[in-house]
């Protein structure tokens, strides 16, 4: 069964260090999302790609976060420098296109110490 792959599953990093997460969407899915879920809350959209283009990054803290999807397939989300408040689950999701049902990966649990 096709699924969204994310790595690593868990990451512990020190404050002020750089950290990166990787996502491989379901094959053929043109739309890719990165969400952040703080413990006890619902996921919040950080960035949305349509193929290799950013559709929406209005909620992405651009002073420290960056995201890319260079060839329109897999994607990387980077944080530099990490802050304590960045501790959260980072979820990647993909869909056939804008407005279609989104399928979520297992997520990366980030702990900043």
């Amino acid at each position: 069964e096709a699924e969204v792959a994310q790595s690593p599953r868990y990451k512990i990093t020190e404050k002020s260090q750089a950290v990166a997460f990787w996502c491989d969407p379901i094959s053929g899915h043109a739309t890719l999302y990165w969400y952040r879920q703080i413990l006890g809350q619902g996921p919040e959209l950080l960035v949305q790609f349509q193929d290799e283009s950013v559709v929406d990054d209005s909620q992405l803290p651009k002073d420290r976060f960056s995201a890319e999807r260079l060839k329109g397939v897999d994607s990387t989300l980077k944080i530099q420098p990490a802050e304590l408040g960045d501790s959260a689950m980072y979820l990647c999701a993909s869909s056939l296109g804008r407005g279609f049902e989104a399928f979520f990966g297992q997520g990366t649990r980030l702990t900043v110490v």
Partner: protein
Amino acid sequence: ELKVEQNPLFLSMQEGKNYTIYCNYSTTSDRLYWYRQDPGKSLESLFVLLSNGAVKQEGRLMASLDTKARLSTLHITAAVHDLSATYFCAGYSGGGADGLTFGKGTHLIIQP
């Protein structure tokens, strides 16, 4: 900007009982989604509701959508322990910014 509110946020119930989770949203949403999340895990899609009056059922869960009232409900019938999880509703407002907007989730505990 779409806002999604769920209630209750926390629900403890006994096996065999029925209950309903409510999801209100602030503006027109083209569709409404329900997801389930187990502790430490990702989100599992349960239902996609596409039109007014839509009703979908899977096992002991039934979801409905009333677009005029901007309300969706998730009804649990004869609850069993395995349904213990956090349930999220999410709306998709379309347009330029079309990622899902999630509610805060309903943490459901079903006790024997």
